[in-house]
């Protein structure tokens, strides 16, 4: 804590120092005003948190989960299989389908799992310019299936790079990371960005009944983005492997296996024509292989307890959409149609049992949104989307809709936003269909999509150097989905409700020095809590001459679940980056320095396990 107080003092000290030279100040002001997030952000989509390019560089983040760790609601934790989970205060993990991730216009989509967002949580983000996180949003504005948290990643623009970068890093646990990108405009009509990454993340290991609990990961990513006369083509290959960690067994005694390996290859094409019609095409090939062995027994639906679990899901997606914007002085009308064709194939080997089956899902969507400005101070937004799901085998057809109405009102330095959304959670195929095998889960082809009503309000004050946001949301869910070991997936009767709030404050001393603080909490109305009910995140950004300083503290309250009392946590990160020249810089980043990070409790596991490791990263970056 003494170190944290020293960092606070340094932040105030360096904040008093100003940049010198009028042209220097003008160039910095121009860079600031040209920040790409100012163009891409959509305030009418909901509450939004932005990580600018400057923020990401000064924080010395390596992967997306370095950023997601700082999210208030939802915050991140770790599932027993080692993958990232998203958690709202007091609740257990959010369904996959609630989290939507976009890389440029390309959505993370998977009919089998609901979303591939968790897979991309460990992706290196050196090629990413800025990140927008929308909360309590429907995804109508951005297309794709519904979600209540939208994470948007925008890649760097070749027109602003005209060169490349290499970054190499290693940590005190033996992790290594290598990133490289190059971006260039070759003519007035053609530009490109190419990115490649490989990393091995070493995690702390634990022991349970002589079995090692290991969650090391390996990632590789190749990404290319081309722009030719407005035709944008993104091509990606991303592969991630996570060791078993606690595994899938009920006694958490996993053998050493490959754990989970996820791979997605995709090509995404988009073009906005002069008539303001936008065309988007996507082809994606996703493969997820789960490989677990546990002699203590793994639950596998109708098969009961097994020891060897090997399951491969292949999901091919072809989707297309056409959208049109019509704008007048006071009105913006947006409408679109889309079609998605998902094919699934599953191959499973559970002990001696071998199962294979497949299915197809066709999704037809039509949507429209209208924004009307009453003068310059008030905007009224209305949205409507219809989704029609048609399965080839066994699963009954579903028709769902999303409706949204909202208002944004500006009064001098204040802004008020209020939204009401009626939406739903799409059930992944893994809960609906298993060709009668009912393994590894007992599926239910008649399962209905849970419906939610979401009311949210935000008051924002913007001063010359500060902003203050107060956010509140009330969510209730009908037909929510439960899993029963004898009945399988079922829709529960009754409703569940959830409230959440956030108070966010930012003060900017000058361009180089700022402080941000968020206090948040939530309540699920149940007697039992599965996670902390409140927390806080404080971030300090400072610069002195050629040195960037960054510090953050993530606090989460104590909680009790599964008969384990989990202590409150203080996760402190501190980093320093020295810019030796315009091209070369060196950085040190210490994570969980107090060794007091958030701990996750698991059912029937004797103690809670720290989600984040204490380590120090050393980084070198060279731009050319």
């Amino acid at each position, binding site marked *: 804590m003494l170190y944290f107080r020293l960092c606070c003092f340094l932040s105030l000290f360096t904040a008093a120092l100003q940049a010198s*030279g*009028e*042209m*220097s100040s*003008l*160039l910095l*002001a*121009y*860079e600031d*005003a*040209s920040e790409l997030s*100012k*163009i891409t952000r959509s*305030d009418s989509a909901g509450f939004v948190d932005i990580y600018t*390019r400057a923020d990401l560089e000064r924080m010395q983040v390596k992967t997306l989960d370095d950023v997601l760790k700082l999210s208030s609601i939802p915050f991140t934790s770790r599932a027993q299989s080692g993958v990232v989970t998203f958690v709202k205060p007091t609740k257990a993990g959010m369904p996959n389908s609630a989290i939507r991730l976009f890389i440029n216009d390309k959505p993370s989509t998977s009919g089998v799992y609901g979303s591939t967002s968790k897979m991309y949580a460990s992706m290196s983000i050196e090629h990413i*310019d800025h990140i927008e996180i929308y909360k309590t949003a429907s995804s109508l504005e951005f297309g794709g299936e519904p979600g209540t948290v939208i994470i948007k990643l925008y890649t*760097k623009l070749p*027109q*602003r*790079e*005209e*060169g490349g*970068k290499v970054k190499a890093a290693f940590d005190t646990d033996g992790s290594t990371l290598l990133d490289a990108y190059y971006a260039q*405009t070759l*003519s*007035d009509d053609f530009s490109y960005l190419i990115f490649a990454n490989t990393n091995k993340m070493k995690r702390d290991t634990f022991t349970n009944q002589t079995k090692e609990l290991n969650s090391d990961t390996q990632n590789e990513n190749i990404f290319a983005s081309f722009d030719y006369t407005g035709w944008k083509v993104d091509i990606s290959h991303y592969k991630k492997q996570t060791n078993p960690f606690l595994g899938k067994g009920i006694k958490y005694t996993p053998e050493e296996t490959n754990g989970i390996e996820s791979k997605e290859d995709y090509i995404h094409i988009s073009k906005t024509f002069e008539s303001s019609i936008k065309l988007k095409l996507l082809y994606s090939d996703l493969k997820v292989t789960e490989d677990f062995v546990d002699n203590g027994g793994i639950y596998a639906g109708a098969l009961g307890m097994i020891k060897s679990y090997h399951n491969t899901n292949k999901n091919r997606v072809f989707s297309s959409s056409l959208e049109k914007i019509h704008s007048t002085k006071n009105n913006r009308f947006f409408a679109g149609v889309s079609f998605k064709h998902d094919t699934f194939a599953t191959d499973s080997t559970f002990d001696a049992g071998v199962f294979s089956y497949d299915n197809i899902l066709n999704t037809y969507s039509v949507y429209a949104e209208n924004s009307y*400005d009453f003068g*310059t*101070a008030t*905007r009224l937004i209305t949205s409507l989307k219809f989704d029609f799901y048609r399965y080839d085998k066994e699963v009954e057809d579903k028709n769902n809709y999303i409706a949204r109405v909202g208002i944004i009102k*500006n009064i001098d330095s204040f802004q008020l936003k209020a939204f009401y959304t009626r939406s739903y959670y799409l059930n992944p195929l893994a809960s609906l269909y298993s060709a009668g095998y009912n393994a590894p889960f007992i599926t239910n082809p008649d399962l209905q999509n849970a419906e939610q009503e979401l009311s949210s309000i935000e008051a924002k004050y913007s001063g010359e150097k500060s902003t203050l946001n107060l956010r509140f949301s009330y969510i209730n869910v009908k037909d929510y989905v439960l899993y029963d070991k004898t009945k399988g997936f079922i829709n529960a009767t009754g409703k569940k409700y959830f409230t959440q709030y956030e108070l966010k404050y930012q003060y900017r001393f000058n361009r180089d020095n700022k402080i941000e603080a968020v206090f948040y909490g939530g309540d699920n109305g149940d007697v039992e809590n599965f996670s902390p009910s409140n927390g806080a995140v404080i971030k300090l950004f400072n610069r002195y001459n050629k040195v960037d300083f960054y510090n953050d503290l993530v606090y989460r309250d104590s909680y009790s679940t599964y008969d384990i009392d989990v202590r409150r946590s203080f996760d402190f990160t501190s980093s320093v980056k020295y810019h030796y020249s*315009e091209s070369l810089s060196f950085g040190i980043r210490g994570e969980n320095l107090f060794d007091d990070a958030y701990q996750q409790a698991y059912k029937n596991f004797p103690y809670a396990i720290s989600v984040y490791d204490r380590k120090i990263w050393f980084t070198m970056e060279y*731009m050319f």
Partner: protein
Amino acid sequence: MIVTTLLASKQDAERKIYESIIKTIFPQKSAVAVWTDSEKKAKVLREIPFVKLVEEKRSADFLIISKTDEGIPEDKKIFADGYLVFKAFKKQLIGGFYWQKGRANLIFIKNNLQKYKIDLPSDLKKYVK
């Protein structure tokens, strides 16, 4: 509402940058005739009181170029608005204002400053290459 305000901030900063550049290159002129091939740049330059936009390159004192396929008279003072243009016309340019490595760059080319006998004020000297 919000987007209009943000664009105005960016334009304002850009206007001040070009105001400083043009005043430095033409310290004695009360009115400077400027030609540009970019409508976006023209919008910024129109706000500078001592700048007069012209349609013919030949009648301009100063050319701000954003496209590489322009036929540029060799006897004119020119400035690059974009990295591609900077690379293409480097031998003739007085300088350029463009994005590179994620940063806004301002460059003055030493040989051409000397050729045109342009004397930079102290806070611009560090941008000479």
